[in-house]
């Protein structure tokens, strides 16, 4: 099992969700997050005073999947979240040692 953590542009959430559901993903967790990347944020002007926006709002998606669909899941996220402009985000993949469904006690693949 793998955990995919993807940081994406907020307005791309619906597209990414649709692409993953089409792949047969059963569930996902979404978090509103803020952060910066290589651009280090940007500046705005308010009433003549320039100010820095150091942390830009993003959406973080967490999904746990079976190993065999890892490549198709990551490429689905890449294709659906891409705008070709800076700030499209990143995808991280982690190994998952176990999973348990709380209601039934099912474990690992059955719990996903």
């Amino acid at each position, binding site marked *: 099992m793998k955990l995919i953590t993807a940081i994406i542009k907020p307005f791309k959430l619906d597209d990414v969700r649709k692409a993953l559901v089409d792949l047969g993903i059963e569930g996902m967790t979404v978090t509103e997050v803020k952060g910066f990347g290589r651009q280090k944020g940007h500046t*705005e*002007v308010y*009433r*003549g*005073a*320039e*100010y820095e926006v150091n942390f830009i709002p993003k959406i973080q998606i967490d999904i746990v999947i079976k190993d065999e669909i890892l490549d198709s899941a990551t490429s689905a996220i890449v294709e659906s979240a891409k705008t070709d402009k800076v700030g499209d985000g990143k995808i991280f993949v982690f190994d998952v040692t176990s999973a348990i469904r709380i209601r039934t006690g099912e474990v690992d693949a059955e719990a996903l």
Partner: protein
Amino acid sequence: MLKKLLFLVIGFSSVTYAMTEPANAAAEDTVYVFNTLLFLIGGFLVMWMAAGFAMLEAGMVRSKSVAMQCTKNISLYAIAGIAFWVLGYNLMYDGVDGGFFGSFTAFSVPDPSADAGDYSAASDWFFQMVFCATTASIVSGTLAERIKLIPFLIFVVLLCGVIYPIQGAWQWGGGFLSELGFSDFAGSTIVHSTGGWAALMGALILGARAGRYVDGKVTAMPGSSMPLATLGTFILWLGWFGFNGGSQLALGSLEDASSVSKIFMNTNLAAAGGVVTAIILTQILYKKVDLTMCLNGALAGLVSITAEPLMPSPLSAIIIGGIGGVIVVFAVPMLDKLKIDDVVGAIPVHLLAGIWGTLVVPWSNPDTSLITQFIGVISIGLFVSAISAVVWFVLKSTIGIRVSEEAEQVGIDKAELGMEAYPDFTK
């Protein structure tokens, strides 16, 4: 009921008749009714400006100061009304006779014998009272987010009971400025600059918000709600038709009705001019239009035309208001350079555009002169600034005017009121 209706019909028909006859053909009662009606309609429109200021200020402060800003606005409006009834009105209007102030006859308004004139005495009191309250509203915006509630309200009592009425007596009460030939139709100087001077003195003595000016840099503190600030500005714009239109002080003749209508037109055009120049200038200077500057631009346009809303041509009104917008766009960052923290932009809008509006009166009104306009601006400015500075200093050295830095960081809503404007919002 029928009698009243009949009276109205007669009233209207005499007005129609007067189209071909001299304007004084209207029945005496009709004149009284229409003049009083103008005071009442103008008055409640200006009263509604208190709501406009409340919403503009609520939108321009950070969300941790919104409940306090609303508290200050409802309190100052109530206190202004009482102070102007107890002392202010007679100090401003009763027996000034070319002098410097009226009578200290407390608790005696309205004088029943005054009803015998061309309008109801109570309608005049109400109309003048809401102007006085407007002056106090101007001060609260500048000093937002760091001034304590009680000393602010004490200042409002003195502003509305004494400071505003005395300088108002000089002109509108028939005092020495009106004898000199000074002209301030609806109060660019008497209402707006007076509020602006009081606010400026407060801002200097109170100091900037914590963290506002650090290492020579300005920290932007974006307001909590642009929709509220916009609604507040629209409410003020609406109220201004009462402010300027009502200041014709009469609606009982064809000439007056025509003047009030011209004033509405010029008032609207001047505000529009202020917005348009703010759009153009912020786009050029900052590459993006700044909404809050556009809102300030509308108000600066309105303040600029307030000293003379009747005489300018429509094009002149747009230019006068448009220059008000220019003043805002350049004065807001200039005040920041001087480290004068004016949260809502009241000093550029009310003080500077008020001075501009007063000085430009001779351009369209040949009965005035730049010199007397200048004397009016300077004498009222010196008086209001001096007295305000003394009051702020006394308050500062006795009960203190500023909340603690910790209270400011936590937010004045929680620290002073134990309340939040938006308790359900996630931080």
